[in-house]
């Protein structure tokens, strides 16, 4: 079995199984935790609306903190949007998702994907430089932060190398690219990348609580 067949076959298959087990394990484990009973009288009944509102409003930068958080927020937005374009806009990626879910949508031209990929890598490098150069951020960072950065950046870099045929033969680069995605899938439920799901759960929970209490968000 060659490397590409291994990557497209057993590696992808097992990493998806681990991903499915891990994501649902973590999510079910958190959602079924006992919550403190709230005996207060609810001020509002629109808790779902409050949850959705907070998910949206917390994504908008706050004017009060803009001066100090602008760089981090902009870079964060750049690489997150870049990742979305690359993951969901590139036709081979859409075909991969289609093979799993049956879902299909139109793709974007490759030139736009390559540009987004390059900008994403640049933003991810900027994020890392900021993390290691800022004393406070550096102190707050642990293995999880750096490894999560690595497994996020690796698929984008290897994907760009594959399309540019740089460093090795295409099939080898493609296999490495797929293996880097396998690593991402395996790590996602167990590290900080779990925020891809939890960000909605945690913000929604907070939003629902705030709405119940009648707090302004």
């Amino acid at each position, binding site marked *: 079995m060659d490397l*590409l067949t291994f990557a*497209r076959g057993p590696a992808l*298959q097992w990493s*998806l199984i681990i991903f499915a087990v891990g994501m649902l*394990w973590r999510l079910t484990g958190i959602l079924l*935790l*006992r919550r403190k009973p709230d005996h207060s009288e609810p001020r509002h009944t629109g808790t779902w609306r409050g949850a959705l509102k907070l998910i949206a409003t917390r994504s908008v930068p706050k004017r009060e903190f803009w001066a100090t958080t602008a760089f981090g927020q902009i870079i964060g937005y750049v690489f997150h949007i870049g990742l979305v374009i690359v993951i969901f806009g590139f036709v081979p990626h859409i075909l991969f998702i289609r093979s799993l879910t049956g879902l299909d949508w139109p793709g974007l031209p490759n030139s736009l994907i390559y540009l987004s990929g390059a900008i994403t890598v640049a933003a991810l490098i900027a994020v890392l430089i900021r993390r290691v150069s800022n004393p406070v951020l550096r102190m707050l960072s642990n293995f999880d932060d750096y490894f999560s950065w690595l497994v996020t950046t690796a698929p984008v870099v290897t994907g760009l190398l594959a399309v540019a045929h740089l460093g090795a033969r295409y099939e080898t680069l493609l296999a490495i690219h797929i293996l880097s995605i396998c690593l991402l899938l395996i790590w996602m439920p167990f590290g900080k990348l779990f925020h891809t799901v939890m960000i909605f759960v945690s913000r929604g929970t907070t939003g629902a609580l705030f709405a119940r209490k009648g707090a302004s968000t």
Partner: protein
Amino acid sequence: MAEHDEYTIGQHLQSQGISRRAFLKFCTAMASALALPPSAALAMASELPGKRRPSVIYMSYQECTGCLESLTRSFSPTLENLMFNVMSLDYDDTLQAAAGFQAEQAREAAMKANWGKYLMIVDGAIPNANNGYCTAAGKSALDSIRETAKGAAAVVAVGTCAAFGGLPIANPNPTGATMVSDIVTDKPVINVPGCPPIPAVITGTLAHFLTFGKLPELDQLKRPIAFYGNTIHDRCYRRPFYDQGKFAKTFDDEGARNGWCLYELGCKGPTTYNACATVKWNGGTSFPIQSGHGCFGCSEPGFWDRGDLYKPLSAGLWHGNMAAELGTAAVAGIAIGGAAAMAARHRQDAHQKKETK
């Protein structure tokens, strides 16, 4: 054979009525196909006429004769035919008139007369599970290839079956088929894969050997880099559509009619190294992608067993029922998560009881 050996290629060409101009055109085309510098065409033109026709022994094993069909069914007169005519094809059980003992005697005589110098072409995989498979003239394929390869200057494995096992090696491989390079380990082996290979690729490889006395530069799979140095995708005339994100979704939709990229329909051009997109077939007329069908990747090892002939390259290669496996994984994840939450609740209760006491 002895009679053949008296003549040089130049004399043979003259006897066939082939003009100097046609021969020079052939040399230029071959040098160009092999990505050699212009001086190589001159070297070919000056070297080849003076050379004696090399003895070639063509052995067929587990194959469909498609490779030989490819080589011989070229339109006449072609450069490929021209090159084939200047070889002394001393044994080929499909083409030769002789049969039985006479045919075997021809092979043995050619081997004896050209010991250490003849070129052996192998077509087909070699069954290794049972000596009874693929027996000819009382000899098993394994014994036959070993015996003939012993006196060869080099062995050319023509077609994917000979080069990588091809269809015979595909699961469940009942004959224990194997490739030439696994059997012949003490001679230079050159692989010319394809199902079938392009005639010009076969003759180009032979022309290189004849002119320079050595095999052309090979890749890691022992294929001539001149022909197998680029992927079909990189040389495909439909590549601009791939870059624009324009794909045919079925074989008869608007995209297919417009000649858009066949990636979504399972084209393996991006991972297939061959000259189909440049040299093409039938005198440069067309190749599979041009006729509307994606590349199967037939010049790559194990192309048949991957089971993805019509799956896009980026789709996973699943073994078993993917939906069932992912469903089981999801149920297992929920069960583990539920058990973890219950354990956490139990700990909370125990802690609360302790505090109440």
